[in-house]
């Protein structure tokens, strides 16, 4: 975040160009808003006319003239009610429409970014891009932003009216307000720093408040309630102090605008009278000026708040723009993409290398060809690159160098809709949506009816487990599926993949939390169900490798061994070693 940032205006311009709905008809909206603001100056003008028409004169009151100007003013006020209403309806409608579009396109863009799956800890931040950041922009455009425009408009109108009435008194008012304007810059930057601290302390506070909730079991079983409470107390109190400090600055700004207004009034009275005696201006003008000073103090009071809101909103907008301008690294060629042939699918890696941005290669020189219908097991220690291999094979990531081909077609040229119909990866984390079991299974095949779902469960040998669920398909799985155990979640994901019926299935330790018997029963059933499909299975339980047609062994980011189980055991290399330790465990007691 240390690189130079775009200025506020540039961010706003860029943001508006991304949401054209906001600027559609913006000219008319602004015009209407300015007309409404200008109308506010009518009252001091009427006051002046009325006073000069004899309200306070010695020579009798011209009632008719006063009634006439009052009536005209009343009509003007009614008219600006209409323009005010119209401008507000327009601004609310256009900004909400534009921001809904922005929200949705940002959401879609997040799904197209590989950081979402690579860096799970950034997810919270990505959620705020499409929620609080957009809310912040909307808040700004509809309130502070509008207020900024109308305030500036109001001050300009007041200034023009003042200048027309008396340039000398205008100068007096300006002299009173210029120091305030200068002070506001200082207040605004102090406020911006104060709010930065408030925001940082909120983030800290939310993190520690989550501990007794998300980590309830650990806190309880280790008896660290006191330590946790101390951390929370500290964060909550820091947040409190920062809030009060920010509040102090706001209150100070508010107050200083009032005292400046008072000084301006006093100056207008003194200098106005003196000028009046010189016949430079009328008595009505002096009184009208005091009304006009009021049009200055309001905006000055709001200014710091508006500036703070503007800074927040610009920061939010900048973040959303940066998100949208981050190129989608795994791009969907869409309908222009090549279609995969139906039926058997083979895969080929051509000189593939992968590294995370700025990092060393985690996978290199991968040259391998997987014929259709082959069942391949991928083996290696943690960090050997086997999961990266799986992600490249299913295009959850793109290689840094080289090509992945499916039945001869470059995988990056295949439309996502088509690709996902043919290729499926089942990840280790058995994530489920907060819905019923049935709805989650249907994620694999939307059109499946209940009977098909139950059949799929039974087909994987899970009928016993299913019978133990009191509410069957209607069983709610909870947030992230956490009402089920880790193993049960993986079973659901497995059934879901069977329903999806892919041509190439990639299992990435998809059964790591399931007991061996159930695991074998389910994966074998899956093999049967998907008989004749190509499958790639990553597992640290080497039973998978023993059963596979072919074993690929990864070590330190390279494909080091390739052959059948028997061949590799005979080879006496990495695989033989891994397998020996596996057998040693499995056969510890004979």
């Amino acid at each position, binding site marked *: 975040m240390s690189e130079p940032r775009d200025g506020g205006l540039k961010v706003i311009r860029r943001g508006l160009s991304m949401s054209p709905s906001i600027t559609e008809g913006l000219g008319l909206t602004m015009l209407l808003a300015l007309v409404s603001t200008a109308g*506010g100056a009518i009252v001091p003008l009427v006051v002046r006319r009325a006073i000069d028409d004899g*309200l306070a004169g010695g020579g*009798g*009151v011209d009632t008719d003239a*006063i*009634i006439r100007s009052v009536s005209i003013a009343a009509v003007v*006020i009614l008219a600006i009610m209409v323009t*005010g*209403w119209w401008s507000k309806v327009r601004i609310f409608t256009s900004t*909400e429409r534009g921001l809904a579009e922005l929200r*949705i396109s940002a*959401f879609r863009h997040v799904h197209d970014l590989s950081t979402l*799956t690579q*860096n799970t800890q950034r997810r919270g931040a*990505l*959620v705020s891009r499409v929620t609080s950041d957009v809310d912040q922009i909307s808040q700004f455009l509809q309130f502070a932003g509008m207020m900024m425009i109308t305030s500036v408009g109001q001050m300009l109108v007041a200034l023009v009216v003042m200048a027309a009435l008396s340039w000398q008194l205008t100068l007096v008012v300006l002299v009173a307000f210029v120091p305030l304007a200068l002070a506001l810059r200082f207040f605004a930057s102090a406020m911006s720093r104060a709010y930065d601290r408030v925001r940082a302390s909120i983030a800290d506070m939310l993190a520690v*408040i*989550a501990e007794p*909730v998300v*980590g*309830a079991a*650990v806190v309880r*079983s280790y*008896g660290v*309630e*006191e330590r946790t*409470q101390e*951390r929370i107390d500290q964060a*909550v109190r820091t947040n*409190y102090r920062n*809030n*009060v400090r920010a509040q102090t600055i706001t209150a100070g700004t*508010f107050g200083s605008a*009032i005292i400046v207004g008072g*000084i301006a*009034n*006093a100056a207008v*009275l003194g200098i106005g009278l*003196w000028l009046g*005696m010189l016949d430079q201006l009328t008595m009505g003008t002096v*009184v009208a000026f*005091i009304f006009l000073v009021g049009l200055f103090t309001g905006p000055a009071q709001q200014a710091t708040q508006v500036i703070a809101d503007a800074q927040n909103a610009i920061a939010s907008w900048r973040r959303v723009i940066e998100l949208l301008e981050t190129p989608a690294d795994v791009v969907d060629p869409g309908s222009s993409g090549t279609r995969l042939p139906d039926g058997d699918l083979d895969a080929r890696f051509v000189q593939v290398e992968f590294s995370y941005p700025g990092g060393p290669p985690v996978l290199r020189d991968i040259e391998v060809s997987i014929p259709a219908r082959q069942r391949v097991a991928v083996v290696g220690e943690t960090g050997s690159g086997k999961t990266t291999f799986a992600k490249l094979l299913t295009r*959850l990531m793109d290689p840094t160098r080289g090509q992945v081909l499916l039945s001869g077609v470059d995988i990056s040229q295949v439309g996502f809709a088509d690709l996902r119909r043919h290729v*499926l990866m089942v990840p280790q984390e058995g994530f489920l*949506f907060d819905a019923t079991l049935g709805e989650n299974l249907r*994620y694999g095949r939307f059109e499946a009816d209940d009977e098909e779902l139950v059949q799929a469960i039974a087909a994987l040998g899970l009928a016993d487990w299913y019978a*133990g669920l009191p509410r069957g398909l209607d069983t709610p799985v909870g947030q992230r599926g956490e009402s089920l*155990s880790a193993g049960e979640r993986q079973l659901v994901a497995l059934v*879901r993949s069977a329903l999806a019926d892919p041509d190439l299935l990639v299992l990435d330790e998809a059964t*790591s939390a399931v007991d061996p*018997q*159930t*695991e*074998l029963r389910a994966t074998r059933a899956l093999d049967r169900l998907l008989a004749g499909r190509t499958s790639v299975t990553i597992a640290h339980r080497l039973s998978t490798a*023993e*059963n596979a047609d072919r074993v690929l062994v990864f070590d330190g980011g390279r494909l080091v061994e390739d052959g059948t189980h028997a061949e590799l055991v005979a080879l006496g290399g990495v695989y033989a070693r891994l397998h020996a*330790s596996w057998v040693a*465990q*499995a056969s*510890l007691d004979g």
Partner: protein
Amino acid sequence: MSADAPLDSLGSDDTRRLTRRGFGVMGVGIRREPWMFALAVVLSLLFGVMTVADAWVLGWATDHVITPSFADGEVARGGLYTGIILFIVAALLRMIGVIGRRLAGGVVFYRLVRDDRLRVTRQYLQLPLRWHHRHPAGQLLSNANADVEATWSVFMPLPMALGVIAMLLAAIGTMAAADPVLTLIGLVVFPLLFVVNAVYQRWQGPRLALAQSLRGDVSAVAHESFDGALVVKSLGREGDETARFARVSERLRDANVAVGRVRAVFDPVIEALPNLGVLLVIGVGAQRIASGAAAPGDVVQVAFLFTVVAMPVRSFGWVLGELPRAVIGWHRVRRVLDDDDHMPYGERALPGSGAVRLDVTGLDYAHPDEPDTTVLRDVEFSVPAGRVVAVVGSTGSGKSTLTSLVTRLVDADAGAVRYDGVRVQELSQAALTSTAALVAQSTFLFDDTVRANIVLDREIPEDRIWSVLRDVQADRFVADLPQGLDTQLGERGTSLSGGQRQRIALARALAREPRLLVMDDATSALDPDVEQRILRALAERSESGSGPSVLVVAYRKATIGLADEVIFLANGKIADRGTHAELRDRSRAYRNIVDAYDQAREEVDHE
């Protein structure tokens, strides 16, 4: 969220009852911060009265300075100085009033929020785990954050609104002193302002509530969709997810536009009303002056009053607008604070040192929400001091539940858990947590340093930490972290892999030198040989008498092989028990689980 549904649909709620409950919430806050609140109100009264005084000064100056000066063609000096001083003094007092009110009012609000946050989180730490299991984490986090703020945000505009009452009374008073007829205009326009504001809030209330709850929906969909990104992506559901998100976003958009439409109608009306009042005052005032009933200063003063009073009157609308949020927020916060579910600890300490004996007798357990489905029934076994016992069973057989029962995270419906013959319910919390350590299936790490995550609230010397890290094969990767033991973990720190996290969690348990170690499939993300090295070292120490008693949930035969006894769980009951060899000999179901891989290998060999 769903639990709150009845209260979210406030549209059907009787508005009067809602207002009464809202005042009740305000009463609670005032009783908690009486002095600071009183200070805020007094300063707000000062502001209100001085605002009226400002208009009075203008009227006074018109009559006593401006008019005579223009009439005589000479500045009325004495009056002018008085006028100038009055203007500045009134502004000064107004400034003091507004700064003080905002500060004191802010302090009241932030204190109420701070104190309730502390109350709610203390309650989270005190409520038993079974309570936590019944409440989704998202809901609890929002109780401690958004709901607490929603409850008290009414205190932001409240002092101002109370000051406005004084201001209006003073305004009416000065008007009455100026001219009775013009006062009548005030008596019409001011109440009208109130009414318009109240009607506005009543119209807007349900719309704002709807928008607020839709904002929650938008956030929930985004959270879930990004959390499940890998599943969404691998199933190619990005388009469907975007459509799902678009549906809630568009509902939110429509709700916000509906809020905006109401605002668009009322804002101009509320702005125009005082201006129309000024015009009325001038029109009527002209005739009053013509008939000699009023002085010009009176008219100017009353007109000015209308312009200064209009803004503050809006604060009543803000108070009314905050009431529904306050009532809902308070209801949610109270539901946490008033929950008296508790799991009292005993007072006994557990004498001695070294491994303890664990006895489990007649344990029954059913999920509180599903009392008909037994999770565990009549479970009975022992772990003699210094021994290793493994629990084996198929997925969903109740193993994890058993680990929470033996460490007393949850109490059983029937039966007993004893350490060295003492029921766990009799033990003090300190005795309990210093005796047993649980390493759970899913790893939780604090947003803190590696060191803090291991030592927690203990004082553990550096060399001891490193020796534990060596035991769990974590010393090398920890040493390679940018700041070693002091590396910050979590959202704004370094992220560790699943296997690394599990090893830190293991180190945390071992560093406390527990007398009973319970591991619930706690090594699932480790490579088999790493796991083997760790477990073997552990078993050796138990054997030599320096280690804890161990209860381990496991699938891997090598792990099970380290155990002195194996408990075989099936459908919540102990189906069999004995050494691994014994069970293999006599239980076909047991063989099917633990020998699954061997059976598979044999089949391969015979193919």
